[in-house]
């Protein structure tokens, strides 16, 4: 009789523990997803600025066709990105392509002086700052989530329920310092 109660008690305790564990896994995963949406908003904002930028630069530097191709390619790669990895690659490509545009703009004083161009440049710099902060927050959440699902005994439940490690969103080497485009 006593043994029955003991077993019953143990089962209830384990059940409660599993319930609690499951809830913390779900919560942590939701945090990662929410953090990703912050990055997504900024990535979207960035690609929305691209057509405008291309138009403005084209107005002053018509024959620099090559530079627009890369930007457009990066932009469509970004729009088509489904996973964190793909977004990350497209984002890095876009950063590189934008750098070229701004480098070319150096040769066109009229373009550099145009108010529109300056505004776009500010907006882009601001968005890049925001992306890097959003990335910081996202990666922090990913780290917490991955630690949670990989530590024992959580790993048993997590793998049984198919919780997968979340992916970090990483910047290209050397991009972590302030992504500011300086002219002058």
């Amino acid at each position, binding site marked *: 009789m006593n043994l029955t109660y003991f077993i019953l008690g143990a089962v209830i305790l384990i059940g409660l523990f599993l319930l609690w564990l499951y809830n913390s896994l779900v919560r942590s995963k939701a945090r990662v997803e*929410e953090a990703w949406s*912050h990055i997504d908003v*900024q990535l979207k904002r960035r690609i929305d600025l691209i057509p405008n930028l291309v138009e403005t630069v084209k107005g002053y530097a018509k024959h620099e066709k090559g530079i627009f191709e890369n930007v457009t390619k990066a932009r469509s790669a970004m729009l088509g990105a489904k996973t964190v990895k793909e977004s990350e690659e497209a984002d890095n490509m876009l950063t590189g392509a934008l750098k070229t545009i701004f480098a070319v703009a150096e040769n066109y004083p009229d373009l550099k002086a145009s108010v529109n161009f300056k505004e776009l440049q500010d907006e882009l710099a*601001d968005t890049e*700052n*925001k992306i890097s*902060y*959003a990335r*910081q*927050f996202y990666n922090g959440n990913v780290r917490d989530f991955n630690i949670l699902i990989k530590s024992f005994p959580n790993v048993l439940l997590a793998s049984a329920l198919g919780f997968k490690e979340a992916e970090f969103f990483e910047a290209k080497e050397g991009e972590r310092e302030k992504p500011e485009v300086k002219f002058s």
Partner: protein
Amino acid sequence: MNLYDQIGANRRRTILLFIFTFLAIIVLGYVFGFYFEDPYLGATGAFIFSFAYSGAAYFFSDRIVLAISGAKPIEKKDHPLLFRTVENLCIGAGLPVPKIYIVEEPALNAFAAGRDPQHSVVAVTRGLLENLEDEELEGVVAHELSHVRNYDIRVMTLAAVLAGSLVMISDIFLRSTRYSGSSRGGRGRGSGAGVLLLIGVLLAILAPLIAQLIKLAISRQREYLADSSGALLTRYPEGLARALEKIAADKTPLRHVSEATAHLYIKNPLTAGFFGNLFSTHPPIEERIRRLRQA
């Protein structure tokens, strides 16, 4: 201590603060009432007052504090740099963007207030905006946002308002004893009343000191914590360290400040006299800079 422990500790402190203030106000009311020969009316009055006051303090404390400080709300176009700095750091910390205020004073200081991250405000002085470089401003804002994220703001804002009420009540009490002491002195009174009067005066004198001590317990350690988690957010401790150097060097007094709100600021805005040191709400700035640079 991680973020969640700290939030838990802050919640307990908030409750303790409420209970303490509640009891203190009732005791003061009782003594006050005894003096006017109806202690129960005094206590009941104080009880009702406490309820109304605590409720008001909880929901309006940020507005009260803002009114005391003389801060004005701004929009993005008024100061895009400050706005962007706050926005970016909020993204990094995963916080909603607080309301942003500027205090039109040349002194270098800043504070955060509110009851939770959804109802929070960050205020900086004009002097701070004019004298700090971008990275330094970022450091200061990150420090303030750390207070928001840890729920420090709730305890600190409530402490400001509730401690303010203790100061206010004991002030009224002290004044009325002085006033009626001369006019009603002729009426014979038992020695029991004399003793209670003494206790009352003692309480009235002690209340502000006790209020100070609560604030002390609440805010010294958390300044270090906010410094370090702020530095973690910007990934650049030097920014805040340099900002603190400039803030420490600045001797311009802040005009709109009271004993009750002093602990909210990044640097104690009151000039430290004897009591300033004894009941200081802030650790020495040199020590904070040293810790930031050590990391």
